């Protein structure tokens, strides 16, 4: 069926949604200082200029802080989330239902509310938590756990219990069935979780901003926020472009892994849900 008007409308939407970003990327390579007049290609704002990402402290530190936070968050949130997903899928009972609900609430809580809550609790009750990296990691892990659970749970449902049962029929102990059958089967979901958590941590703005303490803990999005209106040189665009490349790489890896395995099992709902960051 042809629908020329709808096609045109959708094309216009796609252009509108992506072109501004592509223009921002383009001007990160501008050899001049302008972000509206193209003066030729150069890596000046990445490497050479005193205000470039490589040489301006505030930009370089933001890049380092974003990577550091994303790595720490990924390493802490993934094991906790995988264990929680397995536990919730197998444990039946009232506690399980409540825990499942508790796991879902962070997904629907506006980030502003979480930011305020973290800010107040770290300033008052948990005062051993210092603002900056420590507080930011705790905040990021808290919202990342739910994403891991959803990705891993989708895979748990897809593989079912047949393999575990078969392993135990063949004489494996429950522990062996878990370690040598279930975990290898979960590997793609675990791998995808690592990548997705890395990406959502880099992407986060509100919690990073509420929990930052001085220039050392400013992340890329926070730096974009504070600099965008200050007539910045194109090095800010360069910083944003580096973040874009990092996030897209992580998400592409996750998408390819999930797709490959879900296609084998005949459903890509899980992959779409995970990449769309919501539960279908």
């Amino acid at each position, binding site marked *: 069926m042809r629908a020329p008007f709808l096609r045109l409308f959708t094309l216009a939407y796609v252009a509108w949604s992506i072109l501004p970003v592509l*223009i921002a990327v383009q001007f990160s390579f501008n050899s001049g200082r302008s972000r509206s007049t193209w003066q030729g290609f150069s890596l000046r704002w990445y490497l050479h200029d005193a205000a470039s990402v490589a040489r301006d402290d505030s930009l370089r530190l933001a890049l380092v802080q974003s990577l550091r936070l994303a790595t720490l968050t990924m390493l802490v949130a993934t094991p906790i989330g995988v264990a929680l997903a397995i536990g919730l899928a197998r444990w039946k009972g009232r506690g399980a239902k409540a825990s499942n609900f508790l796991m879902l609430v962070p997904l629907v809580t506006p980030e502003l509310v979480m930011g*305020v809550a973290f800010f*107040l609790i770290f300033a008052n009750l948990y005062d051993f938590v210092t603002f900056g990296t420590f507080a930011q990691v705790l905040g990021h892990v808290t919202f990342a756990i739910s994403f891991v659970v959803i990705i891993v749970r989708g895979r748990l449902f897809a593989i079912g219990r047949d393999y575990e049962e078969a392993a135990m029929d063949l004489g494996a102990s429950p522990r062996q069935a878990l370690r040598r059958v279930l975990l290898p089967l979960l590997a793609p979901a675990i791998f995808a979780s690592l990548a997705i958590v890395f990406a959502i941590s880099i992407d986060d*703005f509100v919690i990073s901003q509420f929990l930052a303490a001085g220039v050392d803990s400013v992340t890329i999005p926070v730096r974009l926020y504070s600099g965008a209106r200050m007539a910045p040189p194109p090095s800010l665009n360069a910083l944003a472009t580096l973040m874009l490349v990092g996030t897209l790489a992580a998400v592409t890896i996750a998408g390819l892994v999930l797709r490959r395995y879900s296609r084998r099992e005949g459903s890509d709902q899980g992959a779409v849900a995970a990449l769309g960051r919501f539960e279908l």
Partner: protein
Amino acid sequence: MPTNVQAGESRAIGLSPWTWKAFALPGVVWLVALFVVPLYGVVAVAMGRLHPVFLRPLPVWNPLRWDPSAFGDVGQELFGGQLGAIALRTITYVAAASLLCVLIGYPVAYFVSRKVEKHKTLWLAALLAPFWINYLMRMMAWVNLLSTDGLVNVTLEALGLAPQAWLEGRHTTVVLGLVYGYLPFFILPLYAALDRIDHQVLEAARDLGASARAAFWRVTLPLSRQGILAGLVLVMLPMFGDYYTPNLLSGSPRTRMIGNQIDQFINQTASQGGRGAALTLILMASIAVLMLYYLRTVARATREAG
């Protein structure tokens, strides 16, 4: 070897229920300590007092000693004071932006799910891309374009038209910024809902004499209602908590939203922490319906999957 289902069932669980609880334990403890307790902390600060010397909020953890005066202050300003105008503006912005999301998002989701036959993955990737381009980068891209010497004004001047101060307190800029920022969150669940509609149902409608138009209005649209609602909830929740979009695209008090007020209470004036916490709770209570609706949808989807 036990062969009946009952025995297989219990052996599949294998490890004792306690083991599974142990698996869930670290995650549950984490969420209680770093999600439930902090939310309670917001209540404790909202119901707390002001430190007499340092003029910063002192939380009160014991509900018997709560002092709701911060709610009184905030409530007074909400009904008649300056906060009331901000709340009304927030609701207007969110309503206008949500309506635009439906008007733009529905045709797009409909086209990609029902009309695209070739290169569907590519179209889907185009719809997914904005999710993974950082929100602040997408806003910065518009700040670039709309600034005084940005491409938009350069183009206008080249056409002989007057340049505009797009980023100086314009309602339309902020609303369109919200639409630009959150529209992808509307399109995707709607796409999923439209994609699930069985082709045969539509064919049946056509076979029974419905025109293409009637089939759309009386079959497709009602069947995609869940997707529209889910999408609306997904865009409205973050819009109600937004403060960075108006700050970046306007920065003027004329476009201040509730989120800006909370940000200011909490981050900029320490002595206002109690009011910030109270306003946060009022915001949360106002959007609780949206949150619960979405939680219910997710819980139902999970039950069906399991």
